[in-house]
């Protein structure tokens, strides 16, 4: 996808990823300000804006964390600019503090918060349901289910937000962010109406006295948003009969496919809700009144179910409401089989078990692995050499979380983004055991730094290893405040990580982790000390270095001596470039990155020649 996402005219149809469609929709809504913290499954939205940003009509930044992203965009919407803030579901926890007051303070320019939830934990530490945040924070909420809706709802959420001057949530799930389908485009407006800021402190400064009034205003706004939901084209009804289904989010797709596959389309009533919060009560009540039984089909929490049960009671509608239960669990992703079972159960039919092939349960697993040439592998190996199982390892969120796996086993606990230093500090204080906390450079800037400040202030006894690979690797190599190079060239203002650590009161030790001797020497030295200590293991992510054209071309390593003598290195490093040809150890030249770390650990492995 090139520049056409920005330039393609109305009426054209493009094959778009849900996340690309969201970016286009925001452009069609006149977006002028985009902030984010990258996080799967949201990352391609900001990545698209970043890629198109040069000469584009909007400001874009990868903010230091989600809270900052929401606060910066909060300033922009107060200044009158239509703004988009993107993050994954757990990112909203970081941004929760400003979020809870943002709707009070209002969003004159318009502000959409994209929350990309992850039912099924495809790439996340939990499966929290952020529709509840929308209700908690007083944000109207849109829930797209297709690529086309991603585009249309991103636009309409922004327009509604600007009209009501209130923040709106666009809540997606992994399957929707990563769906790819045809999207028919609308027009991108060339200009937007200016909304200059007019000073009015009682309206924008939530002192207790003004906050009470703001809450009154917010409730009035939510009533207007409810009326908008009553008339929303994203809430649609079809079919006949006494059995009805109310579906939202991706569950709408599963329901549609089941009804089509089983020839039931038209024989049951369906109410699809794409704009369900605030609850369009009149519309839902009218639907309930036509049914004997209604099944609520929604992934994760019984959000709609609870609201609709309450609505039926309030309006005195006698209808059987079926929600979370055996077929429709409160965890994980839905798919057609369980929705089919729920549909059939509501119709009083049996469900035949799905026939599938069975394969051996003990097939080799293929866990994600640190890449060939990844400097984290070397850092973990060296730390293990010095500390072994004596230390407790506090981990954080990033590629390096993969150090969890053997042979490194370098993650004993993990709470959230930026927690490794503070949680490690608490554990060290409580247990008296040696603790090594790992954290990446982006994660350190995100919120690890506050843990370091605490560790200094309270003299917590732990070694912090900052795995500084000069990028945000896990989510797709987005720049962070410390990087020196991006795909667009040199960063004019990199934040000096070492100076920052010094300013916290610690003299950091910086080592290239691919230099095994230097790394072990530095670790042994630090292991003998007490109090908070920081080792910065700095070496660029090889994939990032290649992308920004800074990779040194090194030939792959090769087995030059006895392959049997290399097996210990194989077991200790588990590099994906290692392979066995029958019983013989070898190094796959296609896979090898030429980092030359294994060469330092075995006399039987040598650097390759330039061209043999």
């Amino acid at each position, binding site marked *: 996808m090139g520049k056409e996402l920005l330039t393609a005219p109305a009426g054209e*149809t493009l*094959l778009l990823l849900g996340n690309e469609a969201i970016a286009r929709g925001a452009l069609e809504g006149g977006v002028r300000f985009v902030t984010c913290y990258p996080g*799967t*499954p949201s*990352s*391609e939205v900001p990545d698209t804006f970043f890629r198109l940003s040069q000469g584009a009509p909007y400001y874009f930044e990868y903010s230091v964390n989600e809270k900052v992203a929401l606060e910066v965009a909060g300033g922009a919407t107060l200044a009158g600019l239509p703004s988009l803030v993107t993050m994954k579901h757990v990112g909203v926890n970081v941004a929760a503090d400003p979020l809870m007051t943002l709707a009070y303070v209002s969003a004159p320019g318009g502000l959409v918060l994209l929350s990309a939830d992850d039912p099924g934990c*495809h*790439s996340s530490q939990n499966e929290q349901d952020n529709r509840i945040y929308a209700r908690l924070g007083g944000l109207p909420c849109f829930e797209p*289910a*297709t*690529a086309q809706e991603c585009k249309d709802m991103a636009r309409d959420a922004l327009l509604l937000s600007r009209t009501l001057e209130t923040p709106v949530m666009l809540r997606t799930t*992994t*399957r929707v962010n*990563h*769906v*790819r*389908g*045809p999207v028919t485009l609308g027009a991108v407006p060339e200009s937007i109406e200016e909304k200059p800021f007019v000073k009015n402190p009682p309206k924008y400064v939530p002192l207790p006295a003004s906050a009470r009034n703001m809450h009154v205003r917010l409730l009035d706004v939510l009533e207007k948003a409810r009326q908008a939901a009553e008339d929303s084209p994203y809430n649609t009804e079809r079919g006949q009969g006494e059995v009805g289904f109310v579906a939202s989010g*991706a569950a*709408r*797709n*599963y329901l*549609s*496919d089941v009804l*089509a596959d089983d020839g039931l389309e038209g024989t049951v009533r369906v109410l699809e809700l794409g704009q369900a919060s605030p609850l369009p009560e009149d519309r839902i009540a009218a639907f309930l009144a036509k049914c004997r039984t209604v099944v609520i089909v929604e992934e994760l929490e019984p959000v709609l179910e609870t609201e609709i049960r309450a609505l039926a009671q309030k309006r005195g509608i006698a209808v059987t409401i079926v929600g979370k239960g055996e077929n429709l669990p409160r965890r994980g*992703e839905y*798919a*057609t*089989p369980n929705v089919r079972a729920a549909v059939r159960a509501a119709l009083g039919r049996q469900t035949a078990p*799905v*026939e*599938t*092939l*069975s*394969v*051996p349960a*003990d*097939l*080799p*697993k*293929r*866990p*994600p*692995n*640190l*890449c060939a040439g990844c400097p984290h592998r070397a850092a973990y190996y060296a730390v293990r050499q010095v500390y072994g199982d004596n230390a407790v390892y506090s981990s954080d969120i990033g*590629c390096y979380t*993969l150090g969890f796996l053997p042979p490194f086993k370098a993650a004993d606990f993990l709470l959230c983004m930026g927690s490794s230093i503070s949680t490690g500090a608490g554990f060290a204080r409580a247990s008296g055991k040696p603790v090594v906390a790992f954290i990446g450079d982006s994660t350190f800037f995100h919120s690890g730094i506050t843990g370091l400040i605490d560790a200094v202030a309270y003299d917590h006894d732990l070694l912090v290893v900052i795995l500084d690979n000069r990028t945000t690797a*896990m*989510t797709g190599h987005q720049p962070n405040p410390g990087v020196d190079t991006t795909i667009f060239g040199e960063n004019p203002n990199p934040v000096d990580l070492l100076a920052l650590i010094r300013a916290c009161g610690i003299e950091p030790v910086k080592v290239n982790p691919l230099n095994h001797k230097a790394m072990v020497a530095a670790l042994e030295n630090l292991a003998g000390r007490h109090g908070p200590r920081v080792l910065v293991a700095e070496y660029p992510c090889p994939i990032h270095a290649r992308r920004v054209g800074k990779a040194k071309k090194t030939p792959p390593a090769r087995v030059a001596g006895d392959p049997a003598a290399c097996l210990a290195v*194989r*077991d200790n490093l*588990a590099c*994906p470039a*290692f*392979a*066995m040809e029958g019983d013989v150890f070898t190094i796959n030249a*296609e896979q090898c990155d030429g980092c030359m770390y294994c060469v330092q650990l075995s006399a039987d492995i040598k650097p390759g020649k330039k061209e043999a």
Partner: protein
Amino acid sequence: MQRARIFLTGVGGQGTLTATTLLARTALDAGLPVTSGEIHGMAQRGGVVESTLLIGGYKSAVIAPGEADTLLGFELLETLRALPMLRRGGRVVGNAEALQPVGVCLGRECYPPLEAVLETARGYAAGVTMVPAISLAEKAGTAKAANMVLLGAAAACGALPFDLDALARSVEKYLKPKIVALNRKALELGAAAAQAGQAA
């Protein structure tokens, strides 16, 4: 119109997602409605990459076990692992060659033989076609084109709702000019291998 659920599986870096997008574009150009899905994130870093392509008016991009009409396996072990996705009478087109997962390299786990795929699918699938995609891609110019070898094979054995020419046109239209010739060659080698395999 024929509806088809195609499940694609491979290893990070194999071009599974590029192949998925190319198929989706080809279907769209043929006037067929398309929904496609992929799982990103942890699937990178050498993990399993799964994607789906649903043609003919499905709304959900998810394929549940027992639902796939076609299974395209870009790596042998991953093809075996994904066989439960197949419906009875579906088709398997796979790469007969392996990429060792770390547990196999470390000698902790055993890599299954090609026969394991054939034996498991026999009597359940309507057809199983396995081609040496990496070797053939190297013959075309680079191992990276193994994804196109597999697409060529799939088209040749009728596992896709469009033919080899349509795929070749998509390669011309959607890939960078520099790599078009190589990828077309890969398509052809895959198709020839599939036809030879069926004849044998």
